[in-house]
């Protein structure tokens, strides 16, 4: 049994978040100490990483994620990210990060206009990120999506920039794009590489009873990165 401290990961709870506890449970199962952070808190505790969970923050009024970015906790998360802190946004968390300008692009209603809730196949495009280091190049992961507005959009110029700088980390398999995302983009990172958002839910794929454990590769990579950083600064 290792005695090294468990990586501390904050999970922000917005009004309307509904995957916050699932994310915390999945992280704890992988060896983290998950700490729920209330959206009204304007300071983060001492954390190695922050997760913005899925759900419908602030009712998803106006545009998904548009209101959540004004919460005190998000200002703290923006500062955390600006200082190089690791931030993972899942589904609604991805939408919040895009609206907050911490990630490029925007998420639009699914092309089908239908809410999609099923497993999808995503291909790992980059393994040299703090969020995919446990994956193999081009590895295909099975992770569920459940969203109505997950159609990733970037205009031509931005898209070229993202591709050139290798910020597209996850892509839906060509025949399995659930929402019409441009170029099949399922997950993108910021230019610095410390902020990452994806529509699929890794926290719902950490137990073989639920059909897949591939989500653990994403969350486990994040925990590895937190541990590595702690060692580097120790």
């Amino acid at each position, binding site marked *: 049994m290792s005695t090294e401290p468990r990586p501390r990961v904050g999970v922000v709870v917005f009004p309307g978040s509904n995957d916050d506890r699932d994310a915390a449970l999945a992280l704890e199962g992988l060896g983290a100490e998950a700490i729920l952070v209330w959206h009204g808190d304007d300071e983060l505790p001492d954390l190695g990483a922050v997760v913005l969970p899925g759900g419908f923050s602030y009712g998803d009024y106006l545009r998904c994620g548009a209101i959540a970015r004004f919460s005190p906790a998000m200002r703290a998360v923006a500062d955390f990210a600006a200082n190089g802190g690791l931030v993972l946004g899942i589904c609604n968390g991805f939408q919040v990060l895009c609206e907050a300008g911490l990630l490029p692009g*925007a998420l*639009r209603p*699914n*092309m089908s206009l239908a809410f999609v809730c099923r497993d999808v196949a995503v291909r790992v495009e980059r393994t040299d990120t703090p969020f995919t280091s446990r994956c193999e190049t081009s590895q295909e992961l099975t992770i569920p999506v459940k969203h109505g507005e997950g159609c990733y*959009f970037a205009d031509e110029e931005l898209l070229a920039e993202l591709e050139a700088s290798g910020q597209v980390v996850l892509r839906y398999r060509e025949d399995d794009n659930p929402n019409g995302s441009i170029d099949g983009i399922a997950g993108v990172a910021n230019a610095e590489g410390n902020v990452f958002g994806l529509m699929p839910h890794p926290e719902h794929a950490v137990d073989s009873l639920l059909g897949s454990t591939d989500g653990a590769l994403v969350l486990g990579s994040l925990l590895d990165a937190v541990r590595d950083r702690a060692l580097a600064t120790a």
Partner: protein
Amino acid sequence: MRVSVLVRPKPGILDPQGEAVEASLRHLGFAVDDARVGRLVDLEVDASDAASAREQVERMCAELLANPLIESYEIELPEGS
């Protein structure tokens, strides 16, 4: 001052809502094309003149009401103001 903001999906942005509305209208027998669905925000703005109201609403659009990557907006002020 009463101000209206019209928010539209930018040209070229896929608008599945507009497509669904268009398909339904055609189903009803209307000969329509290129339907786009946006958003209308009516506001009561505390401003002494139109220029100041417009300036405030421009900032509201930039900061919250529209996402510049995917949406355009148009500000309508009362006639004669």
